[in-house]
């Protein structure tokens, strides 16, 4: 109907005019009040006359505001500019929150954007978002965020940066890394624009799965970790991520590992640690791995072959050190050939054994496991200590592996 249309237009115009008028008047009043001192009859506890009661505004209220103790932070009436702070920066907060002295910020607790509304908040700890906010996911957390630069990160996380800058990952601050997504903290953690005051607004590796963490690290290290796809490996499938072993902020250990290499592996693989305590074992030294072997000489922790993540079939890397066992021989012991038997592991336990020389079984039982028809053929203590089949790895002289 035509009349209703006219009424609608009229009412809308009146409302717009009213809103504009109220806004202009309020602004003028506020401008006039700025710098004004309160009336003489208003005491320090009567701030609520003008500023209202904070307790009625927020779910969580800062205790001085709740108790109308405004001068805890603000200047007393007549001491300076109305509303001015009694101290600058984080020192203001530390006069009460002394236990947070080690909670590093360069500027102030609110200027970082974390405890942005210091009078009160609907979020716990006066955060602008809840600490218990559900983490949206590593990449989702930074979706749509702007790059802010490492200097912004350092303001709060200076301690991390101090470690990081001495690590190999400080390369990320090199001048040739011109694009922000490849530079500094944000090259790994993603753009920090969503992070101010929001714990969940940044790429958090402690919340990341193997695939997510892998994507970040492999952005640069994909070529280095040749074994194709880390996420296919046993480690990744078991929830072991890059940052489970590597601390990109650290500088103490090679490859930014959390601890020396062998210790790191055996910290989880406790059963294997026990195997290295047996009578004979490969010389893996937990105290100083450079004196002996490293776990990674046989295993590829990033993506090795099969369940044991080996760098190659055992018969290929065992002979790198045990070169005299490699052959080819005129009289080979075919049972050692991986194409027919189990290779070296036919007879040896790779980590450690209660029998000498890493043997699976200490005596003639070792040979009997294949030569069952020779169970009662023994000339001495066993097949080789008898002095007979001493060259059992293969020989160029004797088809029976005699010396």
């Amino acid at each position, binding site marked *: 109907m035509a009349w209703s249309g006219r009424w609608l237009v009229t009412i809308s115009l009146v409302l717009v005019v009213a809103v504009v008028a109220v806004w202009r008047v309020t602004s003028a009043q506020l401008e006039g009040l700025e710098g004004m001192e309160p009336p003489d009859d208003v005491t320090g506890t009567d701030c609520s006359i003008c500023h209202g009661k904070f307790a009625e505004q927020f779910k969580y209220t800062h205790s001085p505001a709740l108790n109308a103790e405004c001068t805890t932070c603000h200047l007393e009436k007549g001491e300076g500019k109305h509303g001015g702070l009694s101290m600058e920066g984080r020192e203001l907060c530390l006069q009460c929150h002394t236990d947070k002295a080690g909670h590093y910020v*360069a500027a102030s607790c609110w200027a970082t954007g974390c405890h942005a509304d210091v009078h009160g908040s609907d979020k716990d700890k006066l955060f602008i978002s809840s600490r218990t906010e559900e983490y949206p996911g590593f990449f989702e957390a930074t979706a749509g965020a702007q790059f802010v630069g490492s*200097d912004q990160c*350092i*303001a709060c996380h*200076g301690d991390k940066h*101090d470690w990081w*800058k*001495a690590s190999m990952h*400080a390369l990320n601050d090199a001048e040739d890394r011109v694009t922000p997504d490849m530079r500094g903290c944000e090259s790994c953690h993603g753009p920090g624009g969503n992070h101010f005051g929001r714990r969940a607004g940044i790429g958090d590796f402690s919340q990341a799965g193997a695939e997510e963490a892998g994507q970040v690290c492999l952005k640069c*290290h994909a*070529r*280095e970790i*040749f074994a*194709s796809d880390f996420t*296919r490996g046993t480690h990744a499938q078991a929830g072991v991520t890059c940052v489970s072993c590597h601390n990109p902020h650290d*500088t103490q250990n090679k490859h930014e590992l959390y601890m020396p290499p062998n210790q790191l592996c055996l910290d989880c693989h*406790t*059963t294997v*640690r*026990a*195997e290295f*305590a*047996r*009578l*004979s074992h490969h010389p893996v030294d937990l105290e100083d791995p*450079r004196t002996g072997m490293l776990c990674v000489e046989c295993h590829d922790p990033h993506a090795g072959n099969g369940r044991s993540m080996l760098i190659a079939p055992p018969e290929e890397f065992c002979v790198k*050190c045990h*070169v005299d066992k*490699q052959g*080819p*021989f*005129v*009289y080979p012991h*075919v*049972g050692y050939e991986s*194409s*027919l*038997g189990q290779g070296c592991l036919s007879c040896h336990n790779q980590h450690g054994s*209660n*029998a*000498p020389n890493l043997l699976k*079984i*200490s*005596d003639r*039982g070792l040979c*009997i*496991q*294949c030569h*069952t028809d020779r*169970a*009662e053929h023994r000339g001495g*203590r066993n097949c080789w200590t008898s*002095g007979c089949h*001493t*060259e059992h790895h*293969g020989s*160029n*002289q004797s*088809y029976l592996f005699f*010396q």
Partner: protein
Amino acid sequence: MTWSKRILWPACLAAAWTLLAPGMVLADDDAGGSCTCVEQPGASYVVFGAAAEDVSGTTQANGLRGAYPNGWYVSSRLFAAGGPYNRQRYELRLQDTGSENGRGWGRIAVWPLSVELNSSRRDDYAWDLHGLSPELPRQRTDYRSAQLRWHKGEAQNMQLRYEGRKIDRQGGTLLRDLEYRRLGYQYNFSVGGTGVRGQYCQVNTEVDAPRIGVSSGKIDTSTVRLEAPFGDKLTAYGTGSVAHFSFDNLLDSSMDTTDYTTGLRYRPSCDWEFSADYRHKENPSSNAVSSHSDGFCRLAATAVYTPGCGNRIEAGYNCQKTNYFQLHMQDPSVRSLLHGTAQVTPADVAAVTSNYLPRTHNAWAGFRWQLSDRLSADGRLDYHFGSPPLTDLVQEGSASPFPDKRLDASTDWNYEVSDKDTLGLKLNQQNSSWNDRDSSFDLLSVSGTWTRDLGGPGLMTLALSNSTSSLSAPDVTDTYASDNTSYVVTLYNEHPIVDYTLDFAYTNSTGAERYTQTAVGADIGPRCIPDLGLRVDWFDRNYKTITGLNTTALEVGVTYKLRF
């Protein structure tokens, strides 16, 4: 070159770099800008250490704490990291003893180069099982390596490595010297814009093995690996390797081997992956006289299902065809040839050699599953079957030493009893059977661990392991059985006064090498002097039947870390 000179050259080089490297700042530096550092991390330090040992009896190779030099030795370590934005790191470690044991180790990392030098000598005892009673002859192992790594922009990197090891064994009847030197080069690369990644390796090894029956010579190996993606789901990969052998004391001194694998990997979704590959290998066999494999080809297929949460099920199958040459050893002409004094060549026995292509199959399945919040398990079952190659080494028509069927089973269970306690159980089993001989051989190894979180970094682990083996064969009364058990305890904990680590290992063997072994070690770090460390080790090995091999050793060491 004496031992002291061996450790001096890496030491001097590392020290020179440390002192002369331009722009090296060891002390604290401010990050600059608006950053106000809380505390500069003390990354640079020097550790001084000394230890005294007392050994009675003899010692063996691969002792729990390394070689026991039976005297004083000193060690030191320098670690220095550069200041802000310096990608430089210098490390040096020295240990010297009064009995020619020791090591020197140094590493210099100046981006994009990293150089690592390593030299060690170890003088201890080796097992010599080649005699009517075992003995422990002395052996000396020298090892040195140098490695240079160049790392440019993560896109390309390469490594040049030299290593050499020399083992001198003295006194053993059949243990003789061995030495090898190896030069390796590795280059990782990518083909820009195509997603193709590759690796090239070249390794040249020189072997000097004066033992009778083992060859000395050179082995040169070249390997190329390539991986090429075709879209998001399909990847092709391949590895090719060529090795050239030139051995000194064989009739045909120059031999080659080729080995290549090519395959496809298909991932239709995040949950599924299918792969298939083909491998072909040819072994050098121009000198081989007895039964031997000349090469094989293998076709394999695998399917993996990963539904998430760490769960995984996989299964695979491979079929292998081996190019096998069987020498009919029971032929009278062969026996007389082999028992003669003249050197036998492959041509001499060609007439009594049969060539055939036995097929063997391997089907396997494995899983890893989070059965509940606290219980996880993984396992794998391997079943080998087929027509293994025959030998008549022992008697005409004798069955092959290769079993007709073999089942390998292994499983690993982990149960979190509570937030602090975890139990682990690991089983390995092998069952082999020979139908024509009606015999079988079983091997079982069981180990269990209990891990307790003591809060903070504190951790305690108890481990128990046992292995047994047994033979079942008709008409064999003297069957074989063995039983070995070991108990291991490790404990790390923090205390208001000291941080400490304790290790305990006890082994009881009831096999032929009947013995007990006990090793106890402790690391102690007083809280009041956090840079001070103490280490005590006690080791005892006691044989029940063999005399002369018992050992008792005590070592006490102290270290101090000086930060700067």
